[in-house]
Each structure stands twice: as C-alpha cells, then as structure tokens.
C-alpha cells in the first residue's frame, strides 16, 4: 500500500519541478512517472499474484466516514494500464511535444495530475473520494485536450468534452446519492440481496449505466469522443483512449461487483448496448478520413466488445452459470488491458505520422512505410492486434468471449449468446477492412501529397514507448497463460464463482503452441524467399501503366466505398458527387464524409433550438422598471391568492 501511495505522490509531483527548471524539466517528469510506474506496478503485481491488498484511510471531516483507498485485485488490475501508458506517453511526449509549444510546463503538470487522479480513482472505495478523483480526472483531461486552444476546432472539441463529462458526473451524483441511501453508508459496499430486482435497483443500474457510459464512450453517449481524441495531443489521446474510457468500465465493474443477483435483463441490456457500440463504432470508423477520428471510433467499437463481455458475464451470473460468467468477465477485463495496450500503440504511431507530416488526413498521406519503417511496423502490430488476429493479444480476449458465448448456446433458448457471436464476427471482419484501409492509405503505396514525401522517421524517444507496447501485445498474445491467474483473481471480484478454472483452459496452451508454429513457419518461408535476387529498380507493373503515380492510387475513401454504401442505412454518408458531362469535362471534385449521428444530427440541432427558445424568453428582462415592479406585484398577488385558496 505504501508503495502505491508513493506512486500516487510521485505521479502528482512529476510536473512540479518542471515549473522552475529552465531545461530538462521533461526528463525529470518522465523519471518521476517512471518511478511511479515501478512502485505502482510492484504494488499491483504483488496484489494480483495473491498478496494481501492493503488499504489506507483518509480522515477529514468533510468525508464523514474515513475515506478508504483499497488496492484490491480490481484496482491493481486497472492500475497497470494506467501506469504503463502514463510512462510511455510521457516519454513519447519528450519527442512529440517538448519545445514545440509555449505551454509545455503547464501541460506536464496537468499530465502528472491526471495520472495521479487515475491512480487515486482506481483505488478509491469511498463515494466522495471516488467523485473527487473522477472530476479531477475529467478536468485535467479537459485541460490537456485544450493544449492547442489556438485552433477553434480544439476549443469546440474541448467544450463538448467538458459538457459531456460533467453531465455524466451529475448522473453519478444521483446514482451515488441513491446508493448511499440504500446501503446506508458512503463507503463502497455490496447491495442487499433482492434489491437489484426492485425499482431502486433499476434506478441505480440506469443511473450508473448513464453516468459511466458517458465516460466509456458507449453509444449513443459517445459523441464527445471523436472530436476530443482528434484534437488532443497524440500522447494524451493515447492516455484518454487507452485509460480514461476504461474508467467508465471500471465504474461498471465496481457496480456489478456489488450486485449479488442481477436480473437477467441487465445482461441483455449490456449485450445490446455492446453490440450497438461495437457495430456502429466500427461502421462509422470506416467512413472517416481523419486518422485520429478513425482510431477514436475504434475505441467506441472496443468498448462495445468489452460491454459484450460484461453482458455475457452478467447473463451467466443471473443464470447461475459459472462458465459463462468466468469467460465473459475474464474476456472483458482482459480486453480492457489489451485495448489500452494496442490503442495506445496506435495513437502513438498515429501521432508520429502527424508529427512527421503535419496532417491527419488519410487522403493526403501514403507511402510512409519506406520513410518511417519503425513507425509503420508499430502501427501494423497495433492494427494486427485490434483486429483480433492471432497471435496477438486482441485475439486472446475475443477468444475468451467467443468461448463463453458458444458455451452459452448450450443452455435453453437464450438468444443473447448468438447475438454476441454474430456481433463479434462482424466487428472482426469490418475492423479488418478498416485497418487494412488505414494502414494501406498511410504507409503503403506512394505518397499522395508532398506532406508524406518529406517525412522522416520519428526520434528514438518516440519509438521506444511504441516498442514497449508492441512487445506487450505480442507477449500476451503468445503466452496468454501468464496473465490468467491474475485475471482469475480479478474476475472473482465480480462474482464468487467467476475466475475459477480460467488457467485450466486447455486452449490457451494450444494457442501459444500454434502461435509459435506460425512464427516458425513464417521464419522458414521468409528464409526461403529472402535470397531471391532483385531485378533492378522498377515501377509497379499494374498491367502496363508506364508511369503509375500517386494520383492513380486507390484512395482510402474508395477502398471503404463499397462497405460504406452497403451500410448507407446506418451511416447516412453525405456525398457530394459532381455531374461529369461532355467529352472534355472540366476539373471537378468529389467528396464524401460521414457525420456523427448523435453530435451532428441530434445534439447540435437541439442545442440550436434551445438557444432560439432562450432568445425568445429574453424579453422578460426587457429593461423597463415598471415591468420589473409588475413582476413583484404579480408574485405577491399569486402567492397571496394561492395562500387564501
């Protein structure tokens, strides 16, 4: 526990020295965050390997009951991605951000505070402490998103994020108020059995789902996410997408762990929302041209996968089926870790691209694979993992959920498992298409504009964190058995039966075996290919085009066109297609984009309407004193009459 608290302090203090140091402030911050990482990981791993979870009480008057920090398996598990990504992001920031802008020290300070809030949040086990960390996290993230507030786009994104997160927090106010009322204390505690089925239980479920859903980016509460992730500095986007969203999941996990007997429909709701988020998330990703927006929509998709897992586990819990419960919860939790690893990796490499070329627009990039080999390798690993392809970590977590769903088919007429199966299958296929598009458009072929042509490989300090994350992805993918015991302990928090026999799954060993075989085969074949002599410096043949140039390349939009059209009914793409006529048509432009359904089609218009309405009501404050006095008189009369009547 002491180690954990020290990690908290180190993280909080990481940005402070930089305020006074003229130089090397960034290195100090990285050092402190590294220290925090080591200490925190030490503490967390100790707990996850079966050690005793410590606890620490904050005693201040305003808390009433002393506020507890408890490092239980759940906290330890969620702390790992926080610490890892925080360190990687900071290190990356040295190359990405330092010296580029004026506000570097402030950015460092807030970054450190954000990490501290996250570390505090995962361990918080008291309503007020939790809310404190929660809001601190939200505000710090807001300030980080605003790092480039000179752009109007960034300001808009930041504002939307601020409003969304605060709305979520207000739902949590209500939820925790009800919780405290039902459990009778402000520390975290399990709900009494049988309560979940009552109206209060329903209210709690709904409020927590809304409050945490906003943070997790669950559809349709996701609308703040794409703009914010696109606007934030890339290492911050990595942290937000990799860790902040997961805090919403953490909240749901905590809540589910307090409920001994969830009704069957809770699981159903979770599965339905998961399928919605997953499918629409990836579908909207297909329609994006902005690399970081695309990644942001994929975060929504992965949140969907996690929700599918949680839903499966909850179904198992209410059906009293330990296998479903274990596999569902374990899969969801592992996917939390995995997603933070590979999504962090993807955002970091996307940032490297932005850093090198100055654009996020897929249609202006291309051909970076030759100029930035390491970055492209990192991005490839990330895409590989996020598509859930073996032998990387994404496959393992999805495999667990698949397995649970298949097992679920066995019992009765449950329709949910097959929903999960189909959603996962479709999500997988679409994600594959989407990342083929993204990787192809950015790294393969020829540079489409000068932006790509002049690119140079990112500095080592940026490549190193990517390498770390990539290796982590590979490790979990090849040797899943390593994480299973810990995962089991965490899953047990969600239900006593859960987590049992996770390590006994025969498949895991076989998976690593197949993974090794795969590697070996690839190596052999590679060896067989390598000695082939290169026949001169030639262009792409392409059926005889003498000089294939970038303008003939298949663009990202055209790559996705087929699927986007197929999903027209869901995406409502906005297409501007010029009419080309005559024998010598003049120069023209085609463009298509996919606006966000909630933000651009629901939230913004309704807000505009509200503003109009308010403008009408403004006459009430028209400036004429007699009218104001009339208000007083009328108020008086109304109250007197009401009193008499």
């Amino acid at each position, binding site marked *: 526990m002491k180690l954990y608290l020290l990690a908290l302090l180190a993280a909080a203090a990481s940005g402070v020295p930089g305020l006074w140091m003229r130089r090397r402030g960034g290195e100090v911050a990285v050092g402190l965050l590294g220290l925090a990482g080591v200490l925190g990981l030490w503490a967390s791993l100790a707990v996850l390997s079966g050690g005793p979870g410590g606890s620490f009480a904050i005693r201040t008057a305003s808390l009433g009951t002393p506020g507890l920090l408890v490092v239980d398996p759940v906290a330890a598990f969620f702390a790992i991605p926080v610490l890892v990504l925080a360190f990687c992001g900071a290190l990356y920031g040295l190359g990405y951000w330092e010296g580029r802008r004026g506000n570097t020290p402030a950015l460092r300070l807030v970054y450190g505070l954000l990490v501290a809030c996250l570390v505090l949040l995962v361990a918080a086990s008291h309503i007020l402490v939790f809310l404190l960390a929660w809001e601190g996290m939200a505000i710090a993230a807001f300030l980080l998103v605003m790092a480039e507030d000179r752009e109007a786009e960034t300001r808009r994104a930041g504002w939307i994020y601020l409003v969304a997160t605060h709305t979520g927090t207000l739902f949590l106010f209500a939820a925790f108020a009800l919780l405290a009322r039902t459990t009778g204390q402000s520390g975290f505690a399990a709900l009494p059995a049988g309560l979940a089925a009552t109206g209060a239980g329903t209210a709690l479920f709904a409020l927590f789902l809304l409050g945490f859903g906003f943070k997790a980016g669950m559809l349709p509460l996701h609308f703040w996410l794409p703009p914010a992730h696109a606007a934030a500095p890339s290492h911050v986007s990595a942290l937000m997408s990799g860790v902040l969203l997961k805090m919403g999941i953490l909240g749901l996990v905590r809540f589910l762990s307090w409920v001994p007997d969830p009704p069957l429909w809770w699981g159903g709701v979770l599965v339905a929302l998961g399928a919605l988020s997953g499918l629409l998330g990836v579908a909207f990703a297909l329609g994006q041209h902005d690399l970081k927006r695309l990644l942001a929509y994929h975060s929504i998709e992965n949140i969907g996968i996690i929700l599918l897992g949680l839903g499966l586990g909850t179904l198992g819990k209410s059906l009293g089926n330990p296998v479903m419960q274990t596999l569902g919860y374990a899969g969801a939790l592992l996917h939390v870790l995995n997603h933070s690893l590979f999504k962090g990796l993807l955002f970091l490499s996307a940032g490297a691209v932005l850093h090198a070329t100055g654009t996020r627009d897929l249609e202006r990039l291309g051909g970076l694979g030759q100029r930035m080999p390491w970055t492209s390798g990192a991005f490839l690993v990330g895409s590989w993992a996020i598509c859930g392809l073996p032998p990387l970590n994404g496959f393992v977590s999805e495999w667990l959920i698949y397995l649970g769903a298949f097992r679920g088919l066995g019992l009765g007429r449950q329709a949910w498992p097959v929903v999960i199966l189909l959603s996962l299958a479709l999500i997988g296929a679409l994600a594959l298409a989407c990342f*083929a598009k993204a990787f192809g458009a950015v790294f393969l072929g020829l540079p489409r504009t000068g932006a790509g042509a002049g690119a140079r490989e990112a500095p080592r300090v940026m490549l190193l964190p990517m390498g770390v994350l990539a290796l982590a992805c590979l490790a979990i993918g090849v040797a899943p058995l390593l994480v299973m015991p810990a995962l089991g302990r965490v899953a047990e928090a969600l239900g006593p039966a859960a987590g049992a026999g996770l390590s006994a799954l025969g498949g895991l060993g076989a998976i690593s075996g197949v993974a090794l075989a795969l590697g070996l085969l690839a190596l052999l074949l590679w060896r067989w290919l390598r000695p082939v002599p290169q026949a001169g410096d030639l262009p792409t043949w392409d059926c005889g*085009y003498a000089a294939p140039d970038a303008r003939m390349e298949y663009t990202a939009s055209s790559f996705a066109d087929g699927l986007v059209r197929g999903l027209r009914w869901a995406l409502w793409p906005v297409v501007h297609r010029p009419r080309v006529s005559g024998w010598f048509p003049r120069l023209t432009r085609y463009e298509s984009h996919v606006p966000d359904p909630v933000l651009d089609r629901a939230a913004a218009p309704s807000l505009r309407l509200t503003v109009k309405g308010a403008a009408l009501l403004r006459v009430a404050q028209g400036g004429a004193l007699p009218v104001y006095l009339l208000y007083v008189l009328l108020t008086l009369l109304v109250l007197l009459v009401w009193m008499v009547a």
Partner: protein
Amino acid sequence: MVRSLLPTILQTLLHGLTVLLLPPLLPGLIAKTKALMAGRQGPPVLQLYYDLAKLARKRAVFSRTTTWVFLAGPVGGVAAGLAASCLVPFGHTPAPVSFEGDVILFAYLFGLARFLTILSALDTGSSFEGMGAAREATFSALAEPALFLGFAALAKATSSLSLGTMLAFPGSLATRFTGPLILILAGWVIVYLAENSRIPVDDPNTHLELTMIHEVMVLDHSGRPFALVLYGASLKLLVLGALILTPALPRATHAWQNWLAFYLALGGLAVAVGLVESSMARFRMTKVPQFLVAGVLATGFAFLLMLV
C-alpha cells in the same frame, strides 16, 4: 507404449504429407474438368506442380514502391493456411491439434491470411490491386457471419467447441439433424466458392482485371513469392474443403477407409467445383453480396432449426 502411439503418429504424418503435397492437385482437377466439359483436352492435372517448380527457380521482380509488407502477404497466407490445416480433421480421422475453441482460431487464421494478402496488394500502390483488395475486404465481411452461424449451429447440436467433434461428430449428427446440416453445408459451399474466389463470385482465369477479386491482388507477385501465393490458394481449397466435406462423410470402421473416403470426396469436390464453373457464369459485382447474404440466411435458418 510405442505400439499404442503408433497409429496416431502415422495419422499425423499422413495428415502433414497430405497438406504439403496434395493441394496443387485440386486446381488441376478443376481445370481438367472444365476443359473436358468444354470439349478441350486442357492442361495436365499436375500442371500446378510444374508451375510451382518453375517459379521456385525464377527471379522475382519487386516494384520500387514496395516494402517488406509486399512479401508478408504470401508468407502469411501460407503459414496461416498450414497452421489452420492442423486444426481441421480430414474426414473422420482426428486433427493433429484439437482443443476447446479451436474453431475460433481456425476462422481467425484465415482472417490473418486475408489481412496480410490485402496489405501486400496495397503495398504496390497500383489502383487495380487496391480495387481487388477493397473487394476482398468487403465480401469477406459478408462471408464471416455465414461461417460463424454454421459453427454456432453445429456447436448447439454437438455441444462442443472443437472442430474435431463438431464436424466429425461420432453420434447421429447426419441422421438427427439432416435438415439443418444440409442448410449449413449449402451456406458453407457459398463461403467456399467466395473464399477460394471461384465462379460465380470470381473468375480465376479471366483476363479483364477490372472484374477480378483475388487474382488482381497478386498481379505484381512473381517468382518464389508468386509460387507461395499459388500454393496458398490451393491449400485453402483443401483445408476449407475438409471443413465442408467432413460432416457429410459417413464414419467407417477402419482408418484407411476413412482416408480413402476423404480423398475420394475431395476429388469429387474439385470435380463439382469444375462442373459449377463450366455450367454457370460469373455474377455481376453487385450481385455478389446478395449471393453471400443467401449463405448467411441459410446458416442462420439452420441455427434456428437447431433451437427448436
């Protein structure tokens, strides 16, 4: 000890040899059938073996735009195919590797192969290959649900998650679930044709690149890489073939009978594909999705039948 293990070892050896040597025969068979149907003599059945041998000796040509990703396609395709082949039983002889949930690994290995092939196509920066890659990605997205619905139905029927028991179910799968089984196989045949880019989804030996899916993705491959591409394709024919043949095959008492049955069925499948190819024309690109959706519906309906 050794005596008891011997059959298993032999079986595995035979499995390996089949995977390594047999595949190139299947395209030959298909081509032969088509030729005979068209009243031509056609190339020899072993033509692909000759081609592979020749390509292995040829120099390869690489465009200046390509990177190592360009080679990852062929390599990944073959590696994944071989890995997948260890998971699927050939007829009623069990697969070398088999465990709870190998179904998913099996499906995702083919996903991996597809992913790498698409990337290596995009690596050339050619517009044709980009087009092919896009089509591959689009259509396979539709094939995936059909495959998984079939698995779901079988899993429900056999309450098992291992290809070995799901496909080569010892009990009365074929008799008790005849209706659903037929639907599943029908759906899977569609998947089979699509995944192996055969008519009516794709025409492997057309000469109009605009209409190709798979062939156009490998336009720029040559020499050994191209050899790997061709071998990988034929391997896919074999492995997926095993997937759809096994449930249909009766279980024999002796191992050799099972092998024989499997080989005969495989040959039959190749001939059948040949017949299909020579009896019908390629669909218009816009019709293909409908064709694949039909496969999804078939398997989905099969699953519903399993529920009741």
